[in-house]
């Protein structure tokens, strides 16, 4: 396929698997908002508003995590249930374009939630520079969790399973660890464990950029995040098989 055709291909996948479902069924958008913003709301009221910045950092992390992991559920359906992936495999569409297209479709679903969150962060006085830095962190975390989604989709024997795994991992990654709270409030012995989780690093970076102070040095946070992104990509490239065995 020529580069031009590849672009058309990518666009078609994003348009029909991202935009179109989002516009036809706004519940998809509501679903992305639901849990992260519920937690944000609880933090907000329970703290009389003072924990709002933590809530924002947490929601941003959770939305991004969800979007990445949705890729796993969707890919599993396209492969197991719709057999759409079969049609794609036996066609000129390259695996990379397909994967990228599906991943970007999820980002489209999440765009409204991300826009609201960035708006709220700006409202909290985050500078343009820190918003840009946060966007970079969102992208890195998105690549990590999307790879995780790819990875699980390759193992899911059926769509129900994929859905359960997805929910479970979302909670494990974005509610349990210090995502909606500071890593400093954890008992000391737990801190090293928390610090190797990419969502902890991402949230710590968000917390830093919106003026809560860096509980983890931004450099080490960034390095851990980058490393986990690389690790996930490598893992996925080993595991993903376009053609079945």
């Amino acid at each position, binding site marked *: 396929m020529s580069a031009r055709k590849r672009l058309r291909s990518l*666009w078609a996948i994003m348009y029909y698997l991202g935009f179109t*479902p989002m516009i*036809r069924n706004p519940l998809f958008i509501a679903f992305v908002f639901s849990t992260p913003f519920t937690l944000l709301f609880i933090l907000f009221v329970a703290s009389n508003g003072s924990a709002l910045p933590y809530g924002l950092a947490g929601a941003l992390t959770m939305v991004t995590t969800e979007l990445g992991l949705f890729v796993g559920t969707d890919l599993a359906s396209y492969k197991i249930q719709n057999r759409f992936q079969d049609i794609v495999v036996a066609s000129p569409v390259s695996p990379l374009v397909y994967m990228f297209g599906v991943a970007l479709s999820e980002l489209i679903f999440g765009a409204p939630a991300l826009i609201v969150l960035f708006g709220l962060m700006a409202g909290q006085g985050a500078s343009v520079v820190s918003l840009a830095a946060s966007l970079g962190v969102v992208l890195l975390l998105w690549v990590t969790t999307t790879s995780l989604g790819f990875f699980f989709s390759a193992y899911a024997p059926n769509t129900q399973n994929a859905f359960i795994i997805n929910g479970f991992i979302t909670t494990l990654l974005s509610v349990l660890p210090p995502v909606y709270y500071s890593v400093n409030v954890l008992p000391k012995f737990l801190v090293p464990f928390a610090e190797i989780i990419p969502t902890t690093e991402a949230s710590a970076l968000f917390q830093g950029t919106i003026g809560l102070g860096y509980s983890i040095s931004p450099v080490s946070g960034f390095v851990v995040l980058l490393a986990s992104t690389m690790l996930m990509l490598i893992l996925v490239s080993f595991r993903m098989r376009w053609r079945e065995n």
Partner: protein
Amino acid sequence: MKALRAVQLTKVYRKSKQPALDSLDLEIDSGQIFTMLGRNGAGKTTFLRIASTQLMPTSGSVEVLGLDAVREAKQLREKIAITPQEAETIYPLTPRDHVLLNLRMRGLPKEEAKRRAQEALDDLELTEVADVNSDWLSGGLKQRVIVAMALRTDAELIFLDEPSIGLDPVNRRRVWDQLTRLKKDGKTIILTTHYMDEAEALSDNLVIVSRGKVVAAGTPQSVRASVTQRTTRVDVYDKFNQSELGKYGHAVSIAGRFRVLTDENGAKDLGDEAVARGARVALSPVTLDDVFVDIVGEAEKEEEDER
């Protein structure tokens, strides 16, 4: 030119001992409609999936359009399209979205894709439902959407795995018309089906596969005629038991009667005997359906005897 050449193609799925394809040899001419018949689990889907670069063979090779399906998969994928068995429509896309998604994903420019999508929808009489949510469609309509996705691509060779499953007779013929049109356009069609009349009406050549092996091959007529000498079928409704019918030919019990596949002499003898006994019988030429049951039954029996 050959559109497909499989040599000693074998597939043993992980966690399974029986091969799904067992040293299968097969050649298919280009520009033909070629049909694969075979019982459930015979290996038809496995073959189609390997030839269309979706599945790795265990051993042997398959060349499609002159390209090795394993080593030259990337080039081959530029030239093929498939309709998978038991595919489902995608929520909340409409039939038109499905067809457009496939055409545009394959790199066609927007306007061209739109025009072709309309043609594909008209081809299978999906025009009226073209813009409704596919979830609301009946089973047969959904199946037509899946088939429509493959009808107007640029592919030179199209694999269709049970494309007419669940379709009423009118719509099955509509699918046949489209496959015939594609053939006229110079494309090669490889399909599987369980409908013998479909195989007979459509195919230039066909094979019957049993347990991963080809057990009969040729034109529908030649498979019907030459693979078995049993050209006549006698349905016997009463006054005979199965074992005594065995001496006239191959006798099976179907839906409360016995069906005997036999040659003309056997049919005559059996007819005389039936008249003598006052039994109800009906004579007719064998159909591909009968041949299928006969051949597959025989092949399975031989294999069991070998063990």
